[in-house]
């Protein structure tokens, strides 16, 4: 829009590092009034880190931020809010028991002469804000009953009441229905007309092209390009997002495919995914690709018995399988390496040996007594096989690096002698070297006849490892590609809702 206008918020050379992971490196960004600026990138490209820096949750390690030309240091979330930077997170952080109006004005409720809350004035002010937004919303109801979409509007109203000049929205459409997205976009356009500088963080390309004036692409924590939206096509943007990576990835070894080990038929879970069907053969790696929230993890949870399907059927080795708990799944040879290693994969305070033996402690016991020698032997066998780097199997899992922790999780499941392995983001937060090792392990397991489902947001990983790729989009199978037909662009197009080419 207004090319010459001075930026309200300007980031120069911002970097942020978490342990071994360089989340952001030398990122530049300029937000201008009257403009919706989209920030796109794959999962893990650094978008969330950038949002958290703007929200004052993280402080950058290097680089400079300027607000209206003034140097900006955000000591915390309160400081950001105070300076007119409002951030709307994917999951609004409101007070469910307080009313809509209270949530908007929390911390600065209007007072009556008795120093009490002036409810009349409070509700009128909140109603004015919602009327300005063109939204009908009863302001005296508690937030608890509101949908995510309505809760976001409460956050937006709050931002307006604080007279925010910069509005950062972190994947605001992730849990909205299409009708709710339309309403949100109408409001975003209004805010833009009022002169608010908006940063719209998303990875749904079609939405970005609908709403944004300008788009910046992040990849692997680096700023790739910033262009006016009119000068790019969706295909260009996707190309910039996926880029060409230099990492050497361990390609899958050739393996002879056996009979079908696992089959999902019309699997559905209300509100999460529906009509998901696919097959995995022995020795085959099937990649499950899609955006965050497309339903990949949810499908895996059903296959592992954590959740239950509302419809559809799972077949293991051609037989109907009734999976009601993880124990049932394990009995059928299905195991699941979850996405959240720390919360779901490991008991961090337990030793490597205790983690490896956890699913099979019963099997390792005689007359109830846990055979510690057998436990340690088993753990050190698998540690050796997977090359876990640790001082010994009695070391606590919490002291291991991300890659080695992941190997322990894999070791724990291999110890159950599974036939079907579900992997959910197995290399997330793992450094490059360990990543290649994890890939080698996966590949070897497939070569030994294991049927593998690989959920990954990293396209090169899926492309390198998988024999077949099933792409989910909004809870449905959007496309299925063989190894030879697949490309990053085609997967991304299917995952973002563009019909498969």
């Amino acid at each position, binding site marked *: 829009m207004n090319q010459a206008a001075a930026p309200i918020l300007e980031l120069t050379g911002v970097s942020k590092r978490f342990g071994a992971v360089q989340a952001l490196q030398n990122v530049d960004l300029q937000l201008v009034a009257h403009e919706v600026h989209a920030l796109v990138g794959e999962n893990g490209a650094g978008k969330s880190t950038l949002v958290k820096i703007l929200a004052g949750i993280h402080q950058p390690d290097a680089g400079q931020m300027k607000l209206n030309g003034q140097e900006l240091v955000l000591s915390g979330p309160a400081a950001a809010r105070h300076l007119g930077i409002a951030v709307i997170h994917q999951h609004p952080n409101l007070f469910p028991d307080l009313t809509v109006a209270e949530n908007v004005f929390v911390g600065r409720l209007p007072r009556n002469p008795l120093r009490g809350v002036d409810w009349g004035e409070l509700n009128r002010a909140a109603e004015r804000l919602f009327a300005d937004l063109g939204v009908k919303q009863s302001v005296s109801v508690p937030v608890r009953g*509101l949908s995510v979409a309505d809760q976001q509007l409460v956050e937006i109203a709050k931002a307006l009441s604080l007279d925010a000049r910069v509005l950062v929205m972190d994947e605001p459409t992730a849990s*909205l229905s299409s009708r709710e997205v339309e309403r949100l976009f109408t409001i975003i356009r209004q805010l833009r007309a009022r002169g608010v500088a908006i940063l719209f963080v998303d990875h749904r390309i079609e939405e970005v092209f609908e709403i944004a004036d300008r788009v910046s692409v992040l990849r692997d924590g680096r700023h790739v390009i910033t262009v006016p939206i009119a000068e790019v096509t969706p295909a260009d943007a996707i190309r910039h997002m996926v880029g060409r990576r230099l990492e050497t990835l361990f390609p899958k070894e050739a393996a002879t495919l056996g009979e079908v080990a696992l089959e999902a038929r019309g699997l559905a879970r*209300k509100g999460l995914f529906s009509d998901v069907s696919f097959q995995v053969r022995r020795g085959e790696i099937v990649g499950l690709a899609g955006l965050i929230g497309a339903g990949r993890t949810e499908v895996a949870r059903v296959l592992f018995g954590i959740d239950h399907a509302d419809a559809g059927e799972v077949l293991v080795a051609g037989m109907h399988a009734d999976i009601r708990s993880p124990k049932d799944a394990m009995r059928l040879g299905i195991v699941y390496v979850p996405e959240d290693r720390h919360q779901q994969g490991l008991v961090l305070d337990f030793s490597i040996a205790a983690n490896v033996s956890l699913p099979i402690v019963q099997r390792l016991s005689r007359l109830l007594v846990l055979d510690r020698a057998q436990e340690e032997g088993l753990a050190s066998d698998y540690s050796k096989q997977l090359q876990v780097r640790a001082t010994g199997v009695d070391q606590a899992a919490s002291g291991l690096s991300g890659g080695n922790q992941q190997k322990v999780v894999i070791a724990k499941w291999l110890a159950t002698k599974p036939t079907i392995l579900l992997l959910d983001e197995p290399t997330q937060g793992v450094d490059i070297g360990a990543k290649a090792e994890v890939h080698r392990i996966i590949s070897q397991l497939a070569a030994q006849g294991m049927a593998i489902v690989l959920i990954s947001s990293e396209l090169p990983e899926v492309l390198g490892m998988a024999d077949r790729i099933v792409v989910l989009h909004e809870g449905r199978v959007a496309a299925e590609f063989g190894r030879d037909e697949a490309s990053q662009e085609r997967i991304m197009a299917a995952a973002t809702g563009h019909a498969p080419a």
Partner: protein
Amino acid sequence: MSVRAIDSPTSSALAGRIGLERTLTLVARLREVGILLVLLVVVAIVSIQAPLFFSVSNFEQILLNVSLIAVVAVGQTTVVLTRNVDLSVGSVVGLVAFVTGDLLKEHTLDVPGAIAVGCLLGVGLGAFNGLIIAVARVPAIVATLGTLYVYRGLDFLVAGGKQVSAIDLPRGYLGIASSSVLGVPTLIVAAALIALVAAYLLRNSGVGRELYAIGSNPAAAEVIGIPTQRLIFGAFVVCGLCAGIAGVLWGSRFGSVNALAASGLELQVIAAVVVGGVNIFGGSGTVVGAVLGAILLATIENALRILHLSEFWLLAIDGAVILLAVATDAAIRGYFQRILMRTGRR
């Protein structure tokens, strides 16, 4: 988990959701109405069985019995709203009651002085709870389970087997309970005043709303700069003060005080609070609800007496009522949560 709704809502679903929103609001407000209805049913049934029950003097008796519990329930509500609980209230009431009575018996202080010291003692005991919880970060249940016995033990230490009887107490003190204001017993007036002031402050003061905010979403409260720990400390001080007030009035109401006074009161108070719709997970509920809960329980107690049913059921009823109230609340919440999910919204 974040998931986009798969089905676009149809207009009928949308209408259903707006209805749902109203229902949710209504359910929250209906709690007090619900208790009143149950109360009416109890009164109706018992009145038919025993006409003696339905009399002004009996209702006055019920309200007198409720007044001290109601004052303690006001303090407990303040604490429970912040996602905490105070198990020591019974011991605070007992200790304050004895100390106040003893001061009057020994003529150490005059009536206003003894009352002031009693209230201050309550504040101090509440502050001690608050310190353990807000500073040493001991979970409230453990901290107040400990002080439940510490305060009761101190009560025994101070009492040393002695007892304060009505004849030891000055007439001016005993007169508090027997006097009345415009025909209404002073105790009931005092309890009603305290409840109304607390209800007003919790509903309308900035600090009151912040207490709700803390219980509703502690992390978000911290983020927007609410001094969470300081307010939790304050809530325990208020709870101590309320228990202290009930304590100074205890001797006046019952005439005699020994070291066992008000033991087990905490369970009655907690039962009243949860029956009254104060969410045990914090964040919602009102003082009015808690007081209505106390009245309902006292009415049931009175009815049992009038119907010559075993008084031994009382404690069991308190326990069952705690379980029922909490389970019902959880079930209602879960039910609406599921409906919200089904209609494609969370």
